[in-house]
């Protein structure tokens, strides 16, 4: 005789292993969206609290990672709305970088400004995908879940964005070389 036990919700250990462990993957995106590292840790805890309350639903979801990423993004957007802050395209959420020793301050600042300009010219979806992949280091499945698009579509958007960035930088470089 055998018994089948149907588990309706995940326990603490399962939650830690399957859901909470994604905190590390969420962190760069949440940080960028909220523009502050201290807020990001707090936000991740709140997101996890929401997911803990809904652990029954989360446990049944066919794609837990997708569910967690989407919840996180929605939480950040709601938070920005509550604070009456604009929900910008990804490029304007990037930090202004300081120069390092390898770069001349002015040259580095110019370069940064150029890259921001190139990014801002990209269509919004391409911008978001490029930044989620190259800066937040997200997997394709995670990006697809957050943007509610298919992985193949994400690859196409990403490829277009990367090619465009390469092309624009190439043009600037070749003009510079010609100028020199």
């Amino acid at each position: 005789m055998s018994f089948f036990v149907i588990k309706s919700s995940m326990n603490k250990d399962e939650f830690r292993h399957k859901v909470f462990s994604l905190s590390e993957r969420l962190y760069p995106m949440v940080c960028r969206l909220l523009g502050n590292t201290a807020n990001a840790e707090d936000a991740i805890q709140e997101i996890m609290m929401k997911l803990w309350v809904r652990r029954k639903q989360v446990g049944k979801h066919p794609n837990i990672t997708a569910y967690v990423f989407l919840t996180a993004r929605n939480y950040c957007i709601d938070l920005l709305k509550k604070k009456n802050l604009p929900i910008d395209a990804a490029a304007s959420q990037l930090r202004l970088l300081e120069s390092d020793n390898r770069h001349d301050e002015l040259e580095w600042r110019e370069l940064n400004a150029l890259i921001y300009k190139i990014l801002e010219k990209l269509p919004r979806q391409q911008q978001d995908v490029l930044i989620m992949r190259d800066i937040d280091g997200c997997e394709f499945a995670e990006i697809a879940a957050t943007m509610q698009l298919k992985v193949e579509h994400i690859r196409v958007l990403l490829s277009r964005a990367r090619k465009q960035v390469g092309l624009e930088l190439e043009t600037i470089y070749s003009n510079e070389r010609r100028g020199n």
Partner: protein
Amino acid sequence: MKEEEIENLIEKYKAGTSTLDEEQFLLEHTKDSESAMGVWFEFAKKQKREVAEGFSDTLWQSFQNRKAKRRRLWIGAMSVAATVLLLIAFLIDVPKPQELSYHQKEALLAQALDLLADAEEAKSEENIIYENELIIIYTSWE
């Protein structure tokens, strides 16, 4: 890794088919002076947010504390609510039946007396002269 291999990897990168590990390799091994793409890699590398080692574990501890604190708060709030409800239940006055004022009582009594007076009057209108088991003889004003 040879230059040619890096070139191939960049092609893969542009096609959107490279893995995260391959992209990490590119970010670390392409110098910005070498190619236009290198400038982007340099920028992306600097924009990346480092996640501290053991981030999830540290956060898990504070998550547990937060959960416990929230549970205590919840229990506290519920007990306060229960106490308040109990107090309200005791304090609420059960409405007593409305009492009549002295004047209203007086008026009611007068009304009742009036009715009685009518009845007596009606009775007195029939003036019995003789009465036995078979017959009643009376006078009336009608």
